[in-house]
Structure formats: structure tokens, C-alpha cells
């Protein structure tokens, strides 16, 4: 039984993959807007913008008002937070590994210093 969460996250990532859609989300972060208002900054027809809005709506990232004339679009915050959560969790796992690498690198630097000192000492003592 597939949890509904996965489907939504797939569509969230798909929605976020497009720069126009990301720009639309940024605009909506500033407040709701109609399709016409959203289309304005892009060199794009309203039907083209509407296609993007459908993707965003299906992903649950925006909701659209019922007002037949305006159909204002509004940002829905929860799915965005979820997508960020996946990325953040991935980042945390790698950061934990890299912190272990930080410690290993400190060890390796120390070992290298010791080797260099050892060689210098050997040279001073006249051994090859």
C-alpha cells in the first residue's frame, strides 16, 4: 500500500524542477494573484501559464479560488516544506559523513607532519 506522501513528493519535485514554476511560486509568496497577473512578467500566453498552474495545483503547491472570473491562485505551504525536508535530511546525512572526514583529515595531516619530521630527523642523523 503506497503512502500518499510519496506521490505528492514526486509531483512536488516535478513542479519545482521548472524555473517558470519556481518564479510563479515566488510571486505567490508575496500574495495571491490571478492568472493574468501571473502571466504578465513572462513572455508567455495565458494558456501556457495555465499549464504550469495545473502542474502546481496537482502537486498541491497552489490552490485556485472558485471565482469564475478571476480564479485567484494562492500558495499552499505544506508540500514545499516537505520537499525541503527530503533535501535537508539528505544534506544532514552527508554533513555527518563529512564531519567524520574532517576528523580523518586532521589525523592525516598529523601523520603527514610526523612523516616529514621523521625524514628530516633521519637526514640530520645522516641516514639516507
Amino acid at each position, binding site marked *: 500500500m503506497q503512502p500518499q506522501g510519496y506521490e505528492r513528493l514526486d509531483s512536488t519535485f516535478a513542479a519545482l524542477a521548472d524555473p517558470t514554476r519556481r518564479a510563479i511560486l515566488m510571486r505567490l509568496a508575496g500574495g495571491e494573484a490571478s492568472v493574468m497577473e501571473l502571466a504578465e512578467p513572462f513572455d508567455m500566453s495565458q494558456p501556457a501559464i495555465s499549464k504550469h498552474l495545473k502542474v502546481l495545483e496537482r502537486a498541491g503547491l497552489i490552490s485556485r479560488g472558485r471565482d469564475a472570473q478571476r480564479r485567484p491562485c494562492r500558495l499552499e505551504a505544506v508540500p514545499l516544506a516537505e520537499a525541503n525536508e527530503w533535501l535537508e535530511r539528505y544534506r544532514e546525512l552527508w554533513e555527518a559523513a563529512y*564531519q567524520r572526514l574532517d576528523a580523518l583529515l586532521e589525523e592525516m595531516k598529523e601523520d603527514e607532519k610526523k612523516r616529514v619530521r621523521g625524514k628530516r630527523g633521519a637526514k640530520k642523523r645522516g641516514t639516507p
Partner: protein
Amino acid sequence: MTNATMNKGNLIVTTPTDREIAMTRVFNAPRHLVYEAHTKPELLKRWLGVFGDWTLAECEIDLRVGGSLRYVWRNKANGMAMGLSGVYREVVPNERIVSTEQFDDPWYEGEAVGTLTLVEENGKTTMTNTVRYASKEVRDNVLKSGMESGVAASYDKLEKDVLAA
């Protein structure tokens, strides 16, 4: 809304395209040591031996153009093994490695290409590691692998490909 997460700690992870994951981090060490830690199995296992639910059970590296690499990850929760095989395309010591990687599991289709670069300044090294996956789906599954064991991701695939048919 950006596609980067700005972070606590040093590591930055971004998704520059819908098929890529890019990581950038600074290390307080010269690049030849960072390079060594990335290319010697016994050193890799010390820092990358554990990743979430996964442990690095096997790690073989033949570091030259045309040489092969082999990683096998084992899931602690269910014992599932996930093997990865690849070939080195470019090897510039201490500077750049380009390699391909393919999962054993035929469900994870296609080949990924990884590019690792190291740049040193004032004794510190900036590493960038970008992996481009065969599809958005594989890329997303890799991101999700951080959240739960590979089993859940496999059930997704099972449901989509088999039960939906």
C-alpha cells in the same frame, strides 16, 4: 523559493536540474589529502562507511581511466544489498574525477555520471561533487533514500510497475 538549501555547517546541497544533485563543501586540509580520502577504500570506509541505514560492505577502486569501481551497500534494517558498479572516465590526480555509476538493481534504470572537483586555496580545499542521474525519478529516489530504507522506495516501484498494470 530557491532550489538550494542554505545550511548549518559547511555543506551545501542543491538540485541544479531535475536530474542532478550537487554538493559543495570546504575542508580544512590540502587537496591531496582530500583526494586520498576519496579514493582509497580503507579511508573511504572510515568516513563514508555508514550512511543512514546503509553500511558500505564492499569498496573496490581501480583509479585510472577505464578502471572500474564497485560499491556494495547493505541495509542495516533489512539486510538488503545495493550494489553499484562504475568506470572512471577522467582521473586528474588531486583535481578531478569523472566516473559513471550503475546500480545492480534493474529498477534503478540507467547510468549516473559523477564529477568530483577539488580546488585548494590557503591550505583549504573546496570540493564540488555533482551527480547526474539517468532520470528525475532515479534522482528523486536517491534523495528519498536519505529519509527511509530502500525498501519503501522499492515498494513504490512495485506498486507503480506491477500492481498498477
